[in-house]
């Protein structure tokens, strides 16, 4: 296909052609960055929590009687819950990923020094690791004699006496870079605490700080306030049924309590990321709208050019051009315009990304987005120009003999 006649035609429509080029360029820049932002959000939404998410359900229980001993109450409740058919394991805990209840403590690696960083505490009964499905990658689980009460009645001072902790891989790396953290001593409360094990993943209760979502540590401390969360592990298909049964069992055992937030872990995660999903929806809708408008623009202009050149198309056909020649002419013309647009668009995309990086702490746009964006716009352009180009190809040679 001869390109020179196309170029010279475009030169005669310099303004219109460059507007179309600019539109393609901006579309390319915006779409690349939108897809990038969306993918970052999706990555955040899909962070592994470290838990056996599809097998967990939980219920918050608040005991209203103030005289009862919460430790005894929790044991009775757990025993009754474990008796429900289908329950693989049950634990009482005070925090879960995405639950929002965050108890963070400063950690020192040497006594009497300012804390280096703070991490979220997860406390629970001895079945916690097994029930949550946490994956221990080094060290050991807690020993039965390491368990002490949180002592919530006196400001959670259990933290001053607890002797062992299990940390996430990420926290271990931050505390002791390049070293084996198992066996190391840290200071969280008043006394020394030994790291006895490391788990693969455990997300914090809230992900407010994007650079430290896995600063979590488990303590062998028994929840002993009137508020507690019971976590049950079961087969995925039994979850809904189990929630109902478990609520009934707890109510029957002691009616003087309030049960709240009976839900599966999947629901908890979905709830936590609701806003992100709204935003992704809005972003994707705008992006599709943008692509649609750009396609409309291309179709509209191509249509117009076909009408305008009706006679010259007829002349070309009359002197021997085939339908295919005409079709390819318009396709090539579109390809050229989109190519100019994409070249400019790649520069704009990087520029827009730099601007967003400066103002919104966005990471750098990975370079592979650019060729993908380019190909997408080429395809879009070809698709948009197809109908007008076919119409042009259908112009009969006799058109050449007709006057305007």
């Amino acid at each position, binding site marked *: 296909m001869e390109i020179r006649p196309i170029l010279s035609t475009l030169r005669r429509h310099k*303004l*219109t052609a460059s*507007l*179309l080029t600019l*539109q393609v360029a*901006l*579309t390319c*820049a*915006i779409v690349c960055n*939108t897809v990038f932002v969306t993918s970052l959000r999706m990555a955040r939404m899909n962070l592994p929590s470290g838990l056996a998410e599809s097998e967990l359900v939980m219920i918050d229980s608040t005991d*209203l009687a*103030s005289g009862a001993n919460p430790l005894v109450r929790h044991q009775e409740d757990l025993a009754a819950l474990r008796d429900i058919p289908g329950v693989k394991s049950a634990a009482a805990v005070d925090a879960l990923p995405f639950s*929002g209840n*965050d*108890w963070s403590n*400063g950690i020192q690696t040497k006594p009497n020094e*300012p*804390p*280096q*960083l*703070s991490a979220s505490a997860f406390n629970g009964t001895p079945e916690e690791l097994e029930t949550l499905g946490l994956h221990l990658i080094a060290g050991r689980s807690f020993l039965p004699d390491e368990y002490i009460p949180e002592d919530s009645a*006196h*400001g*959670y*001072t259990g933290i*001053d006496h607890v002797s062992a902790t299990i940390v996430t891989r990420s926290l271990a790396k931050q505390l002791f870079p390049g070293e084996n953290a198992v066996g190391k001593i840290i200071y969280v*409360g*008043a006394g020394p605490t030994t790291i006895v094990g490391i788990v693969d993943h455990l997300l914090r209760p809230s992900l*407010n*700080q994007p*650079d430290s979502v896995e600063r979590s540590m488990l303590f062998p401390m028994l929840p002993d306030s009137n*508020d507690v969360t019971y976590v049950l592990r079961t087969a995925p298909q039994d979850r809904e049924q189990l929630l109902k049964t478990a609520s009934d069992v707890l109510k029957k055992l002691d009616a003087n309590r*309030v049960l709240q937030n009976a839900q599966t872990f999947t629901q908890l995660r979905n*709830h936590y990321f*609701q*806003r992100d*999903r*709204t*935003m992704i929806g*809005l972003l994707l*809708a*705008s992006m599709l*709208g943008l692509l*649609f*408008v*750009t396609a*409309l*623009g291309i*179709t*509209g*202009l191509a*249509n*117009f050019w076909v*009408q*305008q050149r009706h006679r010259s198309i007829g002349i070309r056909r009359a002197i021997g051009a085939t339908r295919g020649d005409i079709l390819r002419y318009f396709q090539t013309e579109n390809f050229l315009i989109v190519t100019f647009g994409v070249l400019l668009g790649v520069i704009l995309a990087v520029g827009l990304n730099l601007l*967003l990086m400066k103002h*919104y*702490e*966005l990471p750098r746009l990975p370079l592979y987005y650019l060729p993908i964006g380019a190909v997408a716009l080429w395809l879009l352009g070809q698709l948009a120009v197809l109908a007008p180009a076919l119409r042009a190809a259908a112009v009969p040679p006799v058109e050449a003999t007709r006057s*305007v």
Partner: protein
Amino acid sequence: MFGYYLNLALYSLKRSPVLTGLMVLAIGLGIGASMTMITVLHVMSDDPLPGRSTQLYYPRIDPQPLGRGDTNPHSGDNLTWPDAQNLLRANRAERQAAMSAGSAAVYPVSGDGQPFFVPGHYVTADFFPMFDVPFRAGGGWTREQDQQRARVVVLGADLKRKLFGDAPVLGRTVHLKDADFSVIGVLGAWHPQPKFYADLDHGAFDKDDQFFLPLQTALDLSLAFRGQLSCWGSGGDSRKGPDCTWLQFWVQLATPAKAQAYRQFLDDYWRQQQDHGRFPRPVDARLYDLMSWLAYKGVVPGDVRMQLWLALGFLLVCMINIVALLLAKFLRRSGEISVRRAMGARRRDIFVQLGIESALIGMAGGALGLLVAELGLWSVRQRPDAYAHLAQMDAPMLFGTLALAIVASVLAGLLPAWRACRVPPALQLKTQ
């Protein structure tokens, strides 16, 4: 002349319905998408207390040890109990109040039926007059009652209706957790959004509080608190200790001069505490007015702003699209324009005529854009997010949308109209 141009424009638009449709669609989508985002941002960043907000300030004094919380710039935003007590006692502002979120089991008045949890706030006396909280009945409590740990409660309108129906409630008793409280006030309609006075790190667009109790009473009865409790050091009763931040604090200062004086007072307080071995960080007391506090706390997340820019980019692309299409459309009519010019129409007449045509497209596009935006906002409202139900267009936004659409399309029509009216008539007519 205007009527004639309008007729011409309508005729021309009807002549190429597909192209007209495309332009209307393009501007409609662009306007719709950007107005949806602008409205969401607008409702999220609105002033929660218009009229009063300029007098409200949040003092930030950070008692944490050095090196702590460096990864989280907001871990020093709350106050400790002793510092809040000291600021209350100093009484340097016209009004001041300490507060924290809480929740409590509320028992139905009739005695049977299950207790249920509702969100509430534990506050000190000045809370109500300072925030100009409207009361339907009764009122708040006094500073003396704060000190006496009075068992009094102010109910939100919803909880009042749930417990008592339409009956008068002042002086009646409500059972919360394990204590009785005497109802001394019922709120009128009060829905500040965002809930600026709460711990903003934990849901700025939360449900309305349904009860208010004196802070000291809540501490005495160990009611359940909500929000961040951030501690260092150890030992002691953590909520009352000097090493745990968890309280929000607001002051009312009528003039900037008073605000300046209060900031000075905070600096002095910091130094004075340093003499007692507290506040190891370099003196850096801050005093945020309400709107800057919201900005500082990032109530409107950066990503919503970013999306606004992307939506405006979308609008820009739509405008370029329309410029290109209008250009094509107008230049195609060079012959007709040349005839009009040859018959005596001035360039300005042509320009106005084409401008009216662009404005017509803009109006149609604006109407479509309103529909698209309403659809977008409707879909946002279907989301269960806390702020989603706020996503509604008010009258200024409505007119803003139409104005934006018309301005955008007239702007988009300027260049094509200018090009079209510069077509040399003689040349065009000759080639015909």
